[in-house]
Protein backbone atom coordinates (compact mmCIF):
# COMPACT_ATOMS: atom_id res chain seq x y z
CA UNK A 1 0.00 0.00 0.00
CA UNK A 2 3.04 2.20 -0.07
CA UNK A 3 2.54 5.46 -1.86
CA UNK A 4 5.39 7.63 -3.02
CA UNK A 5 3.45 10.78 -2.10
CA UNK A 6 2.64 9.68 1.47
CA UNK A 7 3.69 11.92 4.32
CA UNK A 8 3.60 8.95 6.69
CA UNK A 9 4.15 5.41 5.52
CA UNK A 10 3.85 2.64 8.09
CA UNK A 11 4.80 -0.80 6.83
CA UNK A 12 4.84 -4.07 8.75
CA UNK A 13 5.15 -2.28 12.10
CA UNK A 14 5.54 -4.65 15.05
CA UNK A 15 5.84 -3.54 18.66
CA UNK A 16 6.32 -5.08 22.08
CA UNK A 17 5.75 -3.95 25.66
CA UNK A 18 8.27 -6.05 27.52
CA UNK A 19 7.30 -9.63 26.71
CA UNK A 20 3.92 -8.87 25.21
CA UNK A 21 3.74 -8.59 21.45
CA UNK A 22 1.16 -5.85 20.76
CA UNK A 23 1.46 -4.92 17.08
CA UNK A 24 1.75 -7.72 14.53
CA UNK A 25 2.58 -5.91 11.35
CA UNK A 26 0.57 -2.70 11.00
CA UNK A 27 0.51 -1.20 7.52
CA UNK A 28 -1.13 2.04 6.45
CA UNK A 29 -0.28 5.45 5.04
CA UNK A 30 -1.32 9.08 5.42
CA UNK A 31 -1.21 11.55 2.55
CA UNK A 32 -0.22 15.17 3.11
CA UNK A 33 -3.15 17.25 4.31
CA UNK A 34 -5.32 14.24 5.15
CA UNK A 35 -7.15 13.46 8.37
CA UNK A 36 -6.87 9.70 8.84
CA UNK A 37 -8.56 7.88 11.70
CA UNK A 38 -7.60 4.61 13.30
CA UNK A 39 -10.70 2.91 14.65
CA UNK A 40 -10.91 -0.23 16.73
CA UNK A 41 -11.84 -1.75 20.04
CA UNK A 42 -9.93 -1.16 23.25
CA UNK A 43 -6.70 -3.11 23.08
CA UNK A 44 -6.69 -3.33 19.28
CA UNK A 45 -3.34 -1.53 19.21
CA UNK A 46 -4.37 1.99 18.15
CA UNK A 47 -2.59 3.85 20.93
CA UNK A 48 0.42 1.55 20.63
CA UNK A 49 0.58 2.38 16.93
CA UNK A 50 0.82 6.11 17.72
CA UNK A 51 3.39 5.48 20.44
CA UNK A 52 5.42 3.27 18.13
CA UNK A 53 5.47 5.98 15.49
CA UNK A 54 6.70 8.42 18.18
CA UNK A 55 9.33 5.94 19.37
CA UNK A 56 8.02 5.62 22.93
CA UNK A 57 7.44 1.87 23.13
CA UNK A 58 10.17 -0.50 24.21
CA UNK A 59 10.86 -2.42 21.04
CA UNK A 60 9.62 -2.03 17.49
CA UNK A 61 10.47 -3.40 14.07
CA UNK A 62 9.22 -2.80 10.56
CA UNK A 63 9.21 0.55 8.85
CA UNK A 64 7.84 4.00 9.68
CA UNK A 65 8.77 6.51 7.01
CA UNK A 66 7.99 10.18 7.48
CA UNK A 67 8.49 12.39 4.46
CA UNK A 68 10.69 9.64 3.04
CA UNK A 69 12.96 9.29 6.10
CA UNK A 70 12.99 6.13 8.22
CA UNK A 71 12.02 6.73 11.87
CA UNK A 72 12.57 3.21 13.24
CA UNK A 73 15.84 3.26 15.16
CA UNK A 74 15.55 6.94 16.06
CA UNK A 75 14.84 8.12 19.61
CA UNK A 76 11.60 9.94 20.34
CA UNK A 77 13.24 13.36 20.61
CA UNK A 78 14.80 12.87 17.17
CA UNK A 79 11.43 11.76 15.80
CA UNK A 80 9.73 14.87 17.20
CA UNK A 81 12.41 17.01 15.58
CA UNK A 82 11.63 15.40 12.22
CA UNK A 83 8.26 17.20 12.43
CA UNK A 84 5.78 14.95 14.26
CA UNK A 85 3.87 15.95 17.38
CA UNK A 86 1.96 13.72 19.75
CA UNK A 87 -1.05 14.49 21.93
CA UNK A 88 -1.46 11.56 24.33
CA UNK A 89 -4.74 10.03 25.42
CA UNK A 90 -4.18 11.07 29.05
CA UNK A 91 -3.39 14.58 27.70
CA UNK A 92 -0.14 14.85 29.64
CA UNK A 93 -0.75 18.29 31.15
CA UNK A 94 2.02 19.00 33.66
CA UNK A 95 0.77 19.75 37.16
CA UNK A 96 3.93 21.62 38.18
CA UNK A 97 3.61 24.02 35.24
CA UNK A 98 1.03 26.74 34.74
CA UNK A 99 -1.03 26.96 31.56
CA UNK A 100 1.39 29.33 29.86
CA UNK A 101 4.39 27.15 30.71
CA UNK A 102 2.53 24.08 29.45
CA UNK A 103 1.69 25.90 26.25
CA UNK A 104 5.26 27.06 25.64
CA UNK A 105 6.91 23.80 26.71
CA UNK A 106 7.27 21.91 23.41
CA UNK A 107 10.20 23.48 21.57
CA UNK A 108 9.84 24.62 17.99
CA UNK A 109 11.21 21.87 15.78
CA UNK A 110 10.64 23.55 12.42
CA UNK A 111 9.53 26.95 11.21
CA UNK A 112 5.90 27.46 10.30
CA UNK A 113 4.07 26.62 13.54
CA UNK A 114 1.12 28.68 14.73
CA UNK A 115 1.94 31.63 16.93
CA UNK A 116 0.39 31.97 20.37
CA UNK A 117 -2.20 34.49 19.14
CA UNK A 118 -3.45 32.00 16.53
CA UNK A 119 -3.72 29.31 19.20
CA UNK A 120 -5.81 31.67 21.36
CA UNK A 121 -8.08 32.25 18.36
CA UNK A 122 -8.70 28.51 18.21
CA UNK A 123 -8.97 28.12 22.00
CA UNK A 124 -10.06 31.44 23.56
CA UNK A 125 -10.56 29.79 26.97
CA UNK A 126 -6.82 29.25 27.38
CA UNK A 127 -6.08 32.95 27.23
CA UNK A 128 -8.13 33.57 30.37
CA UNK A 129 -6.34 30.85 32.32
CA UNK A 130 -2.65 31.45 31.58
CA UNK A 131 -1.59 31.68 35.24
CA UNK A 132 -3.63 28.70 36.41
CA UNK A 133 -1.95 25.45 37.27
CA UNK A 134 -2.20 23.18 34.23
CA UNK A 135 -4.17 20.44 35.94
CA UNK A 136 -6.67 22.90 37.49
CA UNK A 137 -8.31 23.30 34.07
CA UNK A 138 -11.48 21.42 33.16
CA UNK A 139 -11.11 18.27 31.08
CA UNK A 140 -12.10 20.12 27.91
CA UNK A 141 -9.67 22.97 28.57
CA UNK A 142 -6.90 20.48 29.29
CA UNK A 143 -7.58 18.81 25.95
CA UNK A 144 -7.45 22.19 24.21
CA UNK A 145 -4.17 22.94 25.95
CA UNK A 146 -2.79 19.54 24.97
CA UNK A 147 -3.66 20.15 21.32
CA UNK A 148 -2.78 23.84 21.39
CA UNK A 149 0.73 23.36 22.67
CA UNK A 150 1.75 21.04 19.81
CA UNK A 151 0.57 23.52 17.17
CA UNK A 152 3.40 25.93 17.99
CA UNK A 153 6.14 23.45 17.21
CA UNK A 154 5.94 23.58 13.43
CA UNK A 155 5.20 19.85 13.27
CA UNK A 156 3.34 18.95 10.08
CA UNK A 157 1.89 15.68 11.29
CA UNK A 158 -0.21 15.66 14.46
CA UNK A 159 -0.91 12.37 16.23
CA UNK A 160 -4.04 12.81 18.35
CA UNK A 161 -4.98 9.97 20.69
CA UNK A 162 -8.72 10.00 21.52
CA UNK A 163 -9.08 13.77 21.87
CA UNK A 164 -12.81 13.47 22.64
CA UNK A 165 -12.57 10.91 25.42
CA UNK A 166 -14.64 11.83 28.45
CA UNK A 167 -15.69 15.24 27.12
CA UNK A 168 -19.14 16.86 26.92
CA UNK A 169 -20.84 16.94 23.48
CA UNK A 170 -20.43 20.71 23.14
CA UNK A 171 -16.68 20.40 23.75
CA UNK A 172 -16.46 17.50 21.32
CA UNK A 173 -18.05 19.76 18.70
CA UNK A 174 -15.45 22.39 19.40
CA UNK A 175 -12.63 19.85 19.04
CA UNK A 176 -14.16 18.73 15.72
CA UNK A 177 -14.29 22.32 14.56
CA UNK A 178 -10.65 22.75 15.56
CA UNK A 179 -9.53 19.65 13.67
CA UNK A 180 -11.27 20.87 10.52
CA UNK A 181 -9.66 24.29 10.96
CA UNK A 182 -6.24 22.69 11.34
CA UNK A 183 -6.78 20.58 8.25
CA UNK A 184 -7.74 23.74 6.35
CA UNK A 185 -4.45 25.27 7.48
CA UNK A 186 -2.53 22.37 5.97
CA UNK A 187 -1.88 20.15 8.99
CA UNK A 188 -1.91 16.40 8.46
CA UNK A 189 -3.63 14.54 11.26
CA UNK A 190 -3.59 10.92 12.37
CA UNK A 191 -6.44 10.44 14.80
CA UNK A 192 -7.19 7.55 17.11
CA UNK A 193 -10.88 7.29 18.02
CA UNK A 194 -13.42 4.96 19.55
CA UNK A 195 -16.19 7.40 18.67
CA UNK A 196 -16.68 6.93 14.92
CA UNK A 197 -19.64 9.30 14.90
CA UNK A 198 -17.21 12.03 15.88
CA UNK A 199 -14.56 10.71 13.50
CA UNK A 200 -17.02 10.85 10.60
CA UNK A 201 -17.25 14.64 11.05
CA UNK A 202 -13.52 15.15 10.48
CA UNK A 203 -11.90 12.15 8.78
CA UNK A 204 -11.02 11.63 5.13
CA UNK A 205 -10.23 7.94 5.53
CA UNK A 206 -10.42 5.19 8.13
CA UNK A 207 -8.36 2.19 9.05
CA UNK A 208 -9.87 -0.41 11.33
CA UNK A 209 -7.51 -2.21 13.68
CA UNK A 210 -7.98 -5.54 15.39
CA UNK A 211 -5.51 -7.68 17.34
CA UNK A 212 -2.58 -5.46 16.43
CA UNK A 213 -3.25 -5.37 12.69
CA UNK A 214 -5.06 -3.16 10.20
CA UNK A 215 -7.96 -5.28 8.96
CA UNK A 216 -10.01 -2.86 6.88
CA UNK A 217 -9.85 0.54 5.29
CA UNK A 218 -12.33 2.81 3.56
CA UNK A 219 -12.89 6.44 2.71
CA UNK A 220 -15.36 8.68 4.52
CA UNK A 221 -17.75 8.53 1.55
CA UNK A 222 -17.92 4.74 2.01
CA UNK A 223 -18.78 5.01 5.69
CA UNK A 224 -22.54 4.35 5.30
CA UNK A 225 -21.89 1.31 3.11
CA UNK A 226 -19.51 -0.07 5.74
CA UNK A 227 -21.63 0.57 8.82
CA UNK A 228 -22.52 -3.09 9.37
CA UNK A 229 -18.91 -4.14 9.15
CA UNK A 230 -17.95 -1.29 11.43
CA UNK A 231 -20.49 -2.29 14.07
CA UNK A 232 -19.16 -5.80 13.94
CA UNK A 233 -15.53 -4.72 14.39
CA UNK A 234 -16.22 -2.13 17.05
CA UNK A 235 -18.80 -4.25 18.83
CA UNK A 236 -21.23 -1.35 19.19
Amino acid sequence: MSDAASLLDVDGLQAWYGESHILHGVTFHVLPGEVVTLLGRNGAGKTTTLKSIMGIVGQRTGSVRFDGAELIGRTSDQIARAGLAFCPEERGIFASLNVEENLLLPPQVRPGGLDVAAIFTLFPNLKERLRSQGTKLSGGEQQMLAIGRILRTGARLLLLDEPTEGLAPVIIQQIGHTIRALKAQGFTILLVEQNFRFASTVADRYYIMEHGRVVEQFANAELEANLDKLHEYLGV
Partner: protein
Amino acid sequence: MISIFGIPSQALFGQLLIGLINGSFYALLSLGLAVIFGMLNIINFTHGAQYMMGAFVAYLVLQYLGLNYWVALLIAPILVGLTGVIIERLFLKRLYQLDHLYGLLLTFGLALIIQGVFRNYYGSSGLPYQVPELLRGGQNLGFMFLPNYRAWVIFFSLVVCLGTWFVIERTRLGAYLRAATENPTLVRAFGINVPRMITLTYGFGVGLAAIAGVMAAPIYNVSPLMGEDIIIVVFAVVVIGGMGSIMGAIVTGFALGLIEGLTKVFFPEASNTVIFVIMAIVLLIRPAGLFGRAT
Protein backbone atom coordinates in the same frame (compact mmCIF):
# COMPACT_ATOMS: atom_id res chain seq x y z
CA MET B 1 25.73 41.71 80.36
CA ILE B 2 22.32 41.50 78.69
CA SER B 3 20.57 38.17 78.98
CA ILE B 4 17.57 36.62 77.27
CA PHE B 5 15.65 33.88 79.11
CA GLY B 6 18.60 33.74 81.47
CA ILE B 7 21.04 33.09 78.64
CA PRO B 8 23.77 35.67 77.98
CA SER B 9 22.96 37.34 74.67
CA GLN B 10 26.53 36.80 73.44
CA ALA B 11 26.12 33.05 73.79
CA LEU B 12 22.65 33.06 72.26
CA PHE B 13 23.61 35.08 69.19
CA GLY B 14 26.87 33.18 68.88
CA GLN B 15 25.01 29.88 68.68
CA LEU B 16 22.40 31.34 66.35
CA LEU B 17 25.22 32.40 64.04
CA ILE B 18 26.76 28.94 64.13
CA GLY B 19 23.31 27.55 63.46
CA LEU B 20 22.90 29.83 60.48
CA ILE B 21 26.32 28.79 59.14
CA ASN B 22 25.50 25.11 59.51
CA GLY B 23 22.10 25.85 58.01
CA SER B 24 23.82 27.42 54.98
CA PHE B 25 25.60 24.14 54.31
CA TYR B 26 22.54 22.03 55.06
CA ALA B 27 20.54 24.13 52.60
CA LEU B 28 23.13 23.95 49.81
CA LEU B 29 23.62 20.23 50.21
CA SER B 30 19.97 19.28 50.60
CA LEU B 31 19.15 21.51 47.62
CA GLY B 32 21.57 19.50 45.47
CA LEU B 33 20.07 16.26 46.75
CA ALA B 34 16.55 17.50 46.04
CA VAL B 35 17.44 18.59 42.49
CA ILE B 36 19.06 15.22 41.80
CA PHE B 37 16.28 13.20 43.36
CA GLY B 38 13.59 15.15 41.49
CA MET B 39 15.12 14.47 38.11
CA LEU B 40 16.96 11.14 38.50
CA ASN B 41 14.88 9.52 41.21
CA ILE B 42 18.18 8.57 42.80
CA ILE B 43 19.17 9.28 46.38
CA ASN B 44 22.71 10.49 45.88
CA PHE B 45 24.70 9.03 48.75
CA THR B 46 27.89 10.21 47.02
CA HIS B 47 26.87 13.79 47.86
CA GLY B 48 29.01 14.00 51.01
CA ALA B 49 32.06 12.72 49.13
CA GLN B 50 31.43 15.27 46.38
CA TYR B 51 31.23 18.05 48.97
CA MET B 52 34.56 16.83 50.32
CA MET B 53 36.01 16.76 46.79
CA GLY B 54 34.99 20.41 46.39
CA ALA B 55 36.97 21.32 49.50
CA PHE B 56 39.94 19.27 48.26
CA VAL B 57 39.90 20.97 44.87
CA ALA B 58 40.20 24.29 46.74
CA TYR B 59 43.06 22.93 48.84
CA LEU B 60 44.92 21.29 45.93
CA VAL B 61 44.70 24.16 43.45
CA LEU B 62 46.04 26.45 46.18
CA GLN B 63 48.90 24.09 47.08
CA TYR B 64 49.99 23.15 43.57
CA LEU B 65 48.81 25.95 41.33
CA GLY B 66 48.66 28.86 43.73
CA LEU B 67 45.04 29.53 42.77
CA ASN B 68 43.12 31.33 45.50
CA TYR B 69 39.72 30.79 47.10
CA TRP B 70 37.78 32.80 44.53
CA VAL B 71 39.17 30.83 41.61
CA ALA B 72 38.47 27.62 43.53
CA LEU B 73 34.88 28.71 44.05
CA LEU B 74 34.57 28.83 40.27
CA ILE B 75 36.51 25.76 39.17
CA ALA B 76 35.65 23.31 41.97
CA PRO B 77 31.98 23.03 40.95
CA ILE B 78 33.01 22.66 37.31
CA LEU B 79 35.60 19.95 37.98
CA VAL B 80 33.53 18.02 40.50
CA GLY B 81 30.44 18.51 38.32
CA LEU B 82 32.37 16.91 35.45
CA THR B 83 33.15 13.88 37.58
CA GLY B 84 29.40 13.77 38.27
CA VAL B 85 28.67 13.81 34.53
CA ILE B 86 31.04 10.87 34.08
CA ILE B 87 29.45 8.95 36.98
CA GLU B 88 25.99 9.53 35.51
CA ARG B 89 27.01 8.44 32.00
CA LEU B 90 28.94 5.39 33.21
CA PHE B 91 26.74 4.10 36.03
CA LEU B 92 23.61 5.96 37.08
CA LYS B 93 21.91 5.92 33.69
CA ARG B 94 21.74 2.14 33.91
CA LEU B 95 19.74 2.29 37.14
CA TYR B 96 16.72 4.45 36.34
CA GLN B 97 14.47 1.51 35.53
CA LEU B 98 15.50 -0.37 38.67
CA ASP B 99 14.51 -0.20 42.32
CA HIS B 100 15.72 2.77 44.43
CA LEU B 101 17.91 0.37 46.33
CA TYR B 102 20.33 -0.02 43.43
CA GLY B 103 20.96 3.70 43.17
CA LEU B 104 21.46 3.85 46.91
CA LEU B 105 23.95 0.97 46.88
CA LEU B 106 25.88 2.35 43.93
CA THR B 107 26.18 5.91 45.22
CA PHE B 108 26.98 4.69 48.73
CA GLY B 109 29.69 2.41 47.36
CA LEU B 110 31.14 5.22 45.29
CA ALA B 111 31.22 7.45 48.37
CA LEU B 112 33.19 4.81 50.29
CA ILE B 113 35.67 4.41 47.41
CA ILE B 114 36.18 8.14 46.95
CA GLN B 115 36.60 8.75 50.69
CA GLY B 116 38.97 5.78 50.94
CA VAL B 117 41.17 7.07 48.14
CA PHE B 118 41.41 10.53 49.69
CA ARG B 119 42.09 9.09 53.14
CA ASN B 120 44.85 6.94 51.69
CA TYR B 121 46.66 10.01 50.37
CA TYR B 122 45.77 12.69 52.89
CA GLY B 123 45.09 10.88 56.18
CA SER B 124 42.02 11.62 58.23
CA SER B 125 43.23 14.61 60.21
CA GLY B 126 42.12 17.86 58.62
CA LEU B 127 44.30 20.05 56.42
CA PRO B 128 44.12 23.77 57.21
CA TYR B 129 42.74 26.21 54.66
CA GLN B 130 43.07 29.93 55.26
CA VAL B 131 40.18 32.34 55.14
CA PRO B 132 40.64 34.42 51.97
CA GLU B 133 42.39 37.71 52.66
CA LEU B 134 39.47 39.83 51.56
CA LEU B 135 37.20 38.29 54.20
CA ARG B 136 39.46 38.26 57.26
CA GLY B 137 38.45 40.18 60.35
CA GLY B 138 34.91 40.89 61.33
CA GLN B 139 32.27 43.36 62.43
CA ASN B 140 31.34 44.19 65.96
CA LEU B 141 27.57 44.46 65.84
CA GLY B 142 27.31 45.58 69.46
CA PHE B 143 25.45 42.52 70.64
CA MET B 144 27.90 40.13 69.00
CA PHE B 145 31.04 39.81 66.87
CA LEU B 146 30.37 38.72 63.27
CA PRO B 147 33.39 37.34 61.40
CA ASN B 148 33.33 38.55 57.79
CA TYR B 149 33.87 35.11 56.33
CA ARG B 150 30.85 33.70 58.15
CA ALA B 151 28.68 36.53 56.91
CA TRP B 152 29.90 35.77 53.41
CA VAL B 153 29.01 32.07 53.74
CA ILE B 154 25.45 32.91 54.76
CA PHE B 155 25.10 35.52 52.03
CA PHE B 156 26.56 33.43 49.23
CA SER B 157 24.65 30.31 50.22
CA LEU B 158 21.42 32.31 50.10
CA VAL B 159 22.34 33.72 46.68
CA VAL B 160 23.11 30.26 45.24
CA CYS B 161 20.01 28.68 46.80
CA LEU B 162 17.61 31.40 45.67
CA GLY B 163 19.27 31.57 42.25
CA THR B 164 18.75 27.84 41.82
CA TRP B 165 15.16 28.14 42.99
CA PHE B 166 14.56 30.97 40.49
CA VAL B 167 16.00 29.02 37.57
CA ILE B 168 13.94 25.95 38.35
CA GLU B 169 10.64 27.64 39.22
CA ARG B 170 10.62 30.70 37.00
CA THR B 171 12.48 30.06 33.74
CA ARG B 172 11.91 28.09 30.55
CA LEU B 173 14.81 25.78 31.36
CA GLY B 174 13.26 25.15 34.77
CA ALA B 175 9.91 24.37 33.12
CA TYR B 176 11.67 21.66 31.09
CA LEU B 177 13.15 20.28 34.30
CA ARG B 178 9.85 20.29 36.17
CA ALA B 179 8.01 18.74 33.23
CA ALA B 180 10.68 16.06 32.77
CA THR B 181 10.46 15.27 36.48
CA GLU B 182 6.75 14.56 36.00
CA ASN B 183 6.72 12.78 32.66
CA PRO B 184 10.13 12.33 31.00
CA THR B 185 8.72 10.18 28.19
CA LEU B 186 6.34 12.87 26.98
CA VAL B 187 8.88 15.68 27.32
CA ARG B 188 11.26 13.64 25.19
CA ALA B 189 8.50 13.05 22.64
CA PHE B 190 8.25 16.85 22.32
CA GLY B 191 11.80 16.85 20.96
CA ILE B 192 13.81 17.58 24.11
CA ASN B 193 16.92 15.52 24.73
CA VAL B 194 15.91 14.34 28.20
CA PRO B 195 18.88 11.99 28.81
CA ARG B 196 21.29 14.87 28.28
CA MET B 197 19.21 17.05 30.59
CA ILE B 198 19.39 14.34 33.26
CA THR B 199 23.17 14.13 32.92
CA LEU B 200 23.56 17.89 33.25
CA THR B 201 21.17 17.99 36.21
CA TYR B 202 23.31 15.49 38.06
CA GLY B 203 26.42 17.48 37.20
CA PHE B 204 24.72 20.63 38.50
CA GLY B 205 23.55 19.02 41.76
CA VAL B 206 27.04 17.69 42.34
CA GLY B 207 28.45 21.12 41.52
CA LEU B 208 26.31 22.60 44.31
CA ALA B 209 27.91 20.13 46.73
CA ALA B 210 31.35 21.23 45.51
CA ILE B 211 30.49 24.90 46.10
CA ALA B 212 29.48 24.01 49.64
CA GLY B 213 32.76 22.14 50.02
CA VAL B 214 34.85 25.14 48.98
CA MET B 215 32.91 27.40 51.33
CA ALA B 216 33.37 24.91 54.16
CA ALA B 217 37.15 24.61 53.72
CA PRO B 218 38.12 27.71 55.75
CA ILE B 219 35.61 26.86 58.50
CA TYR B 220 35.83 23.11 59.07
CA ASN B 221 39.28 22.35 57.57
CA VAL B 222 39.71 20.02 54.60
CA SER B 223 39.37 16.38 55.54
CA PRO B 224 38.43 13.19 53.67
CA LEU B 225 35.78 12.50 56.28
CA MET B 226 34.17 15.94 56.34
CA GLY B 227 31.39 14.80 54.00
CA GLU B 228 30.59 11.70 55.98
CA ASP B 229 29.95 13.79 59.09
CA ILE B 230 27.59 16.29 57.55
CA ILE B 231 25.73 14.13 55.05
CA ILE B 232 23.85 12.10 57.66
CA VAL B 233 22.35 15.31 59.03
CA VAL B 234 21.64 16.55 55.51
CA PHE B 235 19.69 13.41 54.69
CA ALA B 236 17.58 14.02 57.78
CA VAL B 237 17.03 17.60 56.53
CA VAL B 238 15.92 16.31 53.12
CA VAL B 239 13.51 13.85 54.71
CA ILE B 240 12.04 16.63 56.88
CA GLY B 241 11.70 19.05 53.97
CA GLY B 242 10.32 16.47 51.59
CA MET B 243 12.24 14.71 48.84
CA GLY B 244 12.38 16.66 45.62
CA SER B 245 10.98 19.97 46.91
CA ILE B 246 13.35 22.82 46.01
CA MET B 247 12.07 25.52 48.33
CA GLY B 248 11.50 22.86 50.99
CA ALA B 249 15.16 21.90 50.92
CA ILE B 250 16.31 25.51 51.25
CA VAL B 251 13.94 26.57 54.02
CA THR B 252 14.37 23.36 55.99
CA GLY B 253 18.14 23.57 55.70
CA PHE B 254 18.36 27.03 57.23
CA ALA B 255 15.60 26.38 59.77
CA LEU B 256 17.16 23.20 61.09
CA GLY B 257 20.56 24.85 61.37
CA LEU B 258 18.95 27.51 63.55
CA ILE B 259 17.02 24.98 65.62
CA GLU B 260 20.21 23.02 66.17
CA GLY B 261 21.95 26.24 67.30
CA LEU B 262 19.15 27.11 69.69
CA THR B 263 19.20 23.63 71.13
CA LYS B 264 22.89 24.06 71.89
CA VAL B 265 21.98 27.08 74.03
CA PHE B 266 18.93 25.80 75.84
CA PHE B 267 19.47 22.05 76.02
CA PRO B 268 23.00 21.23 74.84
CA GLU B 269 22.62 17.50 75.54
CA ALA B 270 20.08 17.21 72.72
CA SER B 271 21.91 19.30 70.14
CA ASN B 272 23.27 16.29 68.25
CA THR B 273 19.96 14.48 68.14
CA VAL B 274 17.38 17.24 67.79
CA ILE B 275 17.31 17.03 63.99
CA PHE B 276 16.67 13.29 64.10
CA VAL B 277 13.93 13.73 66.69
CA ILE B 278 12.28 16.28 64.39
CA MET B 279 12.70 13.87 61.50
CA ALA B 280 10.94 11.12 63.42
CA ILE B 281 8.06 13.45 64.35
CA VAL B 282 7.68 14.74 60.78
CA LEU B 283 7.70 11.19 59.42
CA LEU B 284 4.90 10.28 61.83
CA ILE B 285 2.74 13.29 61.00
CA ARG B 286 3.61 14.06 57.37
CA PRO B 287 5.43 11.11 55.78
CA ALA B 288 5.99 13.04 52.54
CA GLY B 289 7.89 15.76 54.44
CA LEU B 290 6.88 19.32 55.33
CA PHE B 291 7.01 20.57 51.73
CA GLY B 292 6.61 17.25 49.95
CA ARG B 293 3.68 16.27 47.79
CA ALA B 294 2.15 12.99 48.81
CA THR B 295 2.42 10.58 45.93
